[in-house]
């Protein structure tokens, strides 16, 4: 397991990948809120807040996971699974929004 210490580039790349993903989530939430603002009003910004909070949590948990356990021997796949399920839920929500937009029932939201 040489090269996986604190200076490992693999760890650095992985940390940056987590950060990019969190940034994508934050940016997507703000962009989505901006798009939805025209149809559901200021309530859309609750979505932005939720997305930003989720992004912060992902970044934070990812950092803690890698700093406290650089060899990943203890943490396992809980964060990975949580992120997958969260993205799945975002997808389902996007599908609902899309169908609501298409059928013009957006005012119900």
């Amino acid at each position, binding site marked *: 397991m040489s090269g996986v210490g604190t200076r490992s580039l693999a760890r650095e790349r*992985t940390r940056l990948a*987590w950060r990019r993903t969190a940034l994508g989530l934050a940016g997507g939430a703000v962009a989505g809120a901006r798009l*939805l603002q025209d149809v559901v009003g200021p309530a859309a910004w609750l979505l932005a807040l939720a997305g930003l909070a989720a992004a912060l949590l992902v970044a934070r948990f990812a950092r803690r996971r890698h700093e406290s356990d650089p060899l*990943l021997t203890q943490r396992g796949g809980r964060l990975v699974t949580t992120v997958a399920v969260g993205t799945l839920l975002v997808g389902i929500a*996007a599908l609902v929004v899309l169908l609501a937009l298409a059928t013009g029932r957006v005012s119900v939201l």
Partner: protein
Amino acid sequence: MPQPGRPDEPPAARPAAHGDDRAPRTAEASRPRFPARVYAVGAEPDARFSLANERTFLAWVRTALALLAGGVALEALDLPVLPGLRLAAAVLLVVLGTLAPVLAWWGWARTERAIRTGRPLPAPVGFAVLVVGACVAGALVLIGLVLR
């Protein structure tokens, strides 16, 4: 644990000592790693392999987020595309974006298992669906632009 012979012990001493015993690392180590389907088999690999697997998973998640954003934006921005085809493309993109995290997790788990057991890596899952789906969505938008 209760010691009747020492009643003069200050009450705060015991919780503090207990707190010292439970270092976070110990608590984490005693917790079984999830999912067992992955971690119950094989041996601990070089962490770099696990890290690379994790990055691949994250790349899939970002792809999913991009597909979702693209699908919603396509419909919400009121682009000059034939409405029926535009909606079809948007739904296709969002469905792909919903499918992607599932494929990502499945691929991550299968790969991690293969790494731990020393087997050859499994073939990637869902590439065909993603490629064909994205191409079809692009074609729908193109046709919708022309036929508008």
